[in-house]
């Protein structure tokens, strides 16, 4: 058994693809129409690990998704985490690109973390690989 895919529930797949590739810098791995074409199978990968785990940009169409996401965001909870080499450098880079952070870099014991809004209804944590 291997972990190959992780999902984020996004409110708009096109917007999500723009953010995750254009702003964060991931690369599109799959972008395939599904069923009636209303939704697509979209995955992105890190250019630092193109053969690695794929992030699925999953539509948050199920009625349970949006209240769940809103409750997490209100309490500032990131459901998804990415690892970066330098949290401060990423913070500066993403902020310059207009990304909204709910938590600037904070060092807590062995790790430094920051939390930003992915514009698709989620908070994402970036952390050093402590």
């Amino acid at each position, binding site marked *: 058994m291997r972990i190959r895919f992780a999902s984020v529930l996004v409110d708009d797949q096109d917007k999500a693809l723009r953010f995750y590739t254009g702003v964060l810098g991931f690369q599109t791995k799959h972008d395939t129409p599904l069923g009636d074409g209303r939704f697509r199978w979209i995955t992105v990968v890190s250019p630092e690990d193109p053969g690695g785990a794929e992030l699925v940009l999953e539509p948050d169409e199920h009625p349970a998704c949006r209240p769940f996401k809103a409750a997490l965001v*209100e309490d500032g*909870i990131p459901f998804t985490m990415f690892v970066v080499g330098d949290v401060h450098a990423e913070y500066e880079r993403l902020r310059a690109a207009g990304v909204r952070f709910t*938590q600037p870099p*904070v060092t807590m*014991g062995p790790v430094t*973390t920051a939390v930003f809004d992915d514009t698709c209804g989620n908070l994402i944590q970036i952390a050093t690989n402590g």
Partner: protein
Amino acid sequence: MSEDDLYRALADPTRRAILDELVQRDEQTLFELCARLVMKRGIGSTRQAISQHLEVLEAAGLVVTRREGRYKFHSFNGEPLKAIVRRWPSRRKAGGARGEGSGKP
């Protein structure tokens, strides 16, 4: 807010730790505060418990919350603490000459 609320809020060590962390930085989400408490202080209380502590602190006026869009941020407010110093000044104002000629060469 009554004076009793203030002292009751300060009587709990976890609530004092919450204030210590909020003094470090304004505008913290519940997530950040919980992460600071567990990572820096080993306080592994549930998010719900911390949320209830924040309600007590907010009722005492020591924590203020601000909603911005979908986010909610918490900050420290030291204003209510002034009542303590007013009630028990660190030095008695004898003759109104507080702090003057007070032993400094």
